């Protein structure tokens, strides 16, 4: 970071609109930052030393804490998630911007639990959340006796009651949208202006942010926190867990289209998948099979924990899981051949580097910054190639925009390499090739009927994949 330049990390997604309006009112001249923007890097039209970069909200506290950015705007949920684990980081909260308001709740399936019943429970309390650090703090503060936190990429609301006892999920204060009952309000959430503590002192950022404080919309009366024990808005009949029923996980997001195609070819009919209403429990036309739609990233861990019997994910996410937990029972049962990508090591074209050996042998004053969605694959790759010293930067999408300013090396997937080339990046190594695959556990299945049903699905999908 150059001494006089000031860089701000800006959110995409739910906070974009109001953040853009606020910055306009403050006269920061970041005109390229608006709802329709496809830009990642934005220069200020009015302040010559100011530039912005658009991130997934979750990336922003990390980017500011490690000092890649001086300022950032994001939801306080992601700030607290970082501070829960790293209380002495260089991240400082500057100002509550009072929009994007909501809350994080610990919620269970309707009528299933209270804080007291969980505390008294002799078994392990399973908590699923995109906020694993906050979930752990919550469990510790509630003095739960024995708990496990399942970190998730998304879709926490669909986990209770079968796959988790509690989910730590976001919701608006006056409308809890899921088929869950909140048992405790963990945290109030709103947009915050944050800063890197060192930059704040060194660059005199207090003067810089004064116009933002002025531009804030006059305070609304704070909405009153509603009573916590409300009835869920939608009552859902949870499928009963039966030892003979095969629990199948299907991917959400962009993998849905090709998964649907494969299922059609296999003659497996599903209602409402992909779902426009974000239905995560579609019906399937096979007896003894229940389906849930979750993030493909989360599937291997869920299969390892026996929350699902079969799941359609990518080999990249299976590999990521096995890098973290080498003795996990999860294995690939069938190559489904769709969604072919390569997982590659990528540097900026400006870097005078031909292959990974150049990187491991090069002298450097600062640790090499390795950014990836696949944090455990990246860690193993860096270890195996002796990239002494390196630092891992977890990312949540659009990793290609991190080079060259915010990282030195990426471990990233690519279909054609076109996006990478557009960002002036070059591939220096291919780690492996990934396609969609069917995964399951190596553990023995107790029920013969279930085993038979599983075999039938595996065979059907294998045959459908052969035709591709």
């Amino acid at each position, binding site marked *: 970071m150059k001494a006089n330049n000031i860089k701000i990390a800006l959110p995409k997604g739910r906070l974009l609109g109001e953040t853009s309006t606020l910055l306009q009112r403050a006269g920061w001249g970041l005109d390229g930052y608006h709802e329709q923007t496809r830009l990642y890097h934005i220069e200020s039209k009015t302040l010559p030393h100011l530039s912005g970069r658009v991130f997934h909200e979750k990336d922003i506290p990390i980017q500011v804490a490690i000092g890649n950015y001086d300022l950032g705007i994001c939801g306080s949920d992601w700030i607290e998630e970082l501070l829960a684990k790293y209380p002495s980081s260089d991240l400082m909260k500057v100002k509550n911007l009072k929009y994007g308001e909501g809350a994080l709740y610990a919620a269970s399936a309707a009528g299933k639990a209270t804080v007291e019943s969980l505390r008294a429970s002799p078994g392990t309390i399973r908590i699923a959340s995109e906020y694993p650090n906050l979930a752990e703090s919550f469990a510790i503060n509630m003095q739960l*006796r*024995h708990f496990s936190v399942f970190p998730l990429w998304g879709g926490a609301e669909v986990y209770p009651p079968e796959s988790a006892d509690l989910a730590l999920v976001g919701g608006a204060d006056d409308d809890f949208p899921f088929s869950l009952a909140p048992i405790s309000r963990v945290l109030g959430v709103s947009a915050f202006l944050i800063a890197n503590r060192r930059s704040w002192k060194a660059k005199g950022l207090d003067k810089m942010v004064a116009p933002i404080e002025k531009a804030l919309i006059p305070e609304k009366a704070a909405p009153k926190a509603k009573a916590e024990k409300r009835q869920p808005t939608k009552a859902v009949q949870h499928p009963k867990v039966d030892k003979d029923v095969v629990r199948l996980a299907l991917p959400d997001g962009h993998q849905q289209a090709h998964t649907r195609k494969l299922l059609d070819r296999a003659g497996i009919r599903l209602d409402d998948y992909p779902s426009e209403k974000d239905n995560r429990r579609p019906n399937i036309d096979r007896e003894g099979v229940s389906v849930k739609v979750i993030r493909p990233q989360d599937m291997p861990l869920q299969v390892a924990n026996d929350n699902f019997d079969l799941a359609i994910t990518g080999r990249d996410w299976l590999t990521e899981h096995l890098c973290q*937990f080498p003795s996990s029972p999860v294995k690939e049962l069938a190559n489904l051949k769709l969604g072919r990508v390569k997982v590659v090591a990528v540097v900026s074209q400006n870097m005078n580097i031909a292959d990974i050996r150049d990187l491991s042998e090069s002298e450097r004053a600062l640790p090499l910054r390795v950014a990836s969605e696949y944090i455990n694959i990246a860690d193993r790759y860096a270890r195996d190639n002796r990239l002494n010293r390196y630092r891992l930067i977890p990312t949540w999408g659009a990793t290609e925009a991190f080079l060259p300013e915010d990282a030195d090396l990426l471990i990233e997937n690519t279909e054609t390499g076109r996006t990478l080339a557009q960002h002036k990046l070059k591939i220096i190594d291919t780690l492996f090739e990934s396609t969609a695959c069917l995964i399951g556990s190596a553990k023995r299945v107790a029920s013969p009927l279930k085993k038979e049903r599983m075999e039938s699905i595996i065979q059907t999908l294998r045959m459908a994949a052969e035709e591709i």
Partner: protein
Amino acid sequence: MKIQRSKGTRDLSPQDMVSFRLIESAFRQCCLKWGYQEVKTPTLEYLHLFTATGTLTPSMLSKVYSFLDWDGWSGERVVLRPDGTIPISRLYIDSMAKEKLAKLFYVANIFMFEATGKKSRERWQCGAELIGARPPLADIELVTLALEVLRELKIEGIELRVSHAGLIKALLARLGLSAEEQTRMFDQILDGDMKALDKLKLKRPELEKTLSSLLKMKGKPSGFSKELKELFTEELPECKPYIDNCAKIAESLEAMGCKYQIDIASGRGFEYYTGVIFQIFKGEEKIGGGGRYDALIPSMGGKDVPASGFALYLERLMALIKPKALAEPQPPRILVRADGGKIREGFDIANRLHKAGYRAECYLGAQKEADFDWTVDIKDKPKLTLTDRAKKQKVTAKTVDGLLALLKG
């Protein structure tokens, strides 16, 4: 590349280790004399051992080093041991539960995050645990043992601060708080947050003043047994056994000539205490502490067995001892210098000298003569020359036996 020590850690230098071993050895000797047996528990334990109610307070838990092991896909976290007592209780339940009385001691490092990195995040403790014995006898034995160790280390001016977890809990129960509030308040008091009490809107305002002043009471000397006993017995009869228990300990401390004061709010992060809690101070520095934890082992799934223990903080003691005053006299130190062809002989002679009880080492080209009491030079003629550095005398011998005779003479 510059290799840096990880923030919040320290190296123990050769000089540090001399102090470390002196303390460890004094502690071990005292424990062995009292019939305690040494154990070592693993550095890694499951986190859940420390998370249940009645173990560590949430504020302490927020500083533990926990992570997922390579096979931790179930979300079961492991932790770098943040405390010495809970692993010993686990060991007792795992493998010693049949024994009615277990007297155990350990020297172990514990790990706790400290934000500034200026204090050490890895600390060493000398701890003793007495499982299966009741108050006040067991507590008095532990205090006696701790004081004996400090006496052996010639650390003077020790003061004890005594409290009672049962007393704190009984007081809180009287404040009309819900069970959950009581637990939270107990934790906050143990974490040293006395202001928490002021913030409460109490349901029994008439009791508030007395109770909060009792909780904050500090520094009252030996008069405790009379004055307070009366006050407690009138207003809080349920506290009588605790007061009696404290009084017994106080009496023995007085008999031992140990200075002490009552400091009700002194648990510091250990929710597992149920009875008397004592902290050992030298000036304003806390150098150890312990107490009774009767509910811990049953709450961890063991049988209902009373227990108490204490730990001394090794690094704090290292700063207080004078190693020279404590060190045992060492045997003379001898440097063996061999000519080129006599290397094997040099090592043989060093071996013989070790067997005879001397410290001896071969010359490696860098040792200073000044650090040794004697030097032995091995040549062809005369074969062995012994030089006494202090007396500047040289004598010769033909055989190793001859050399040993010269050393004795």
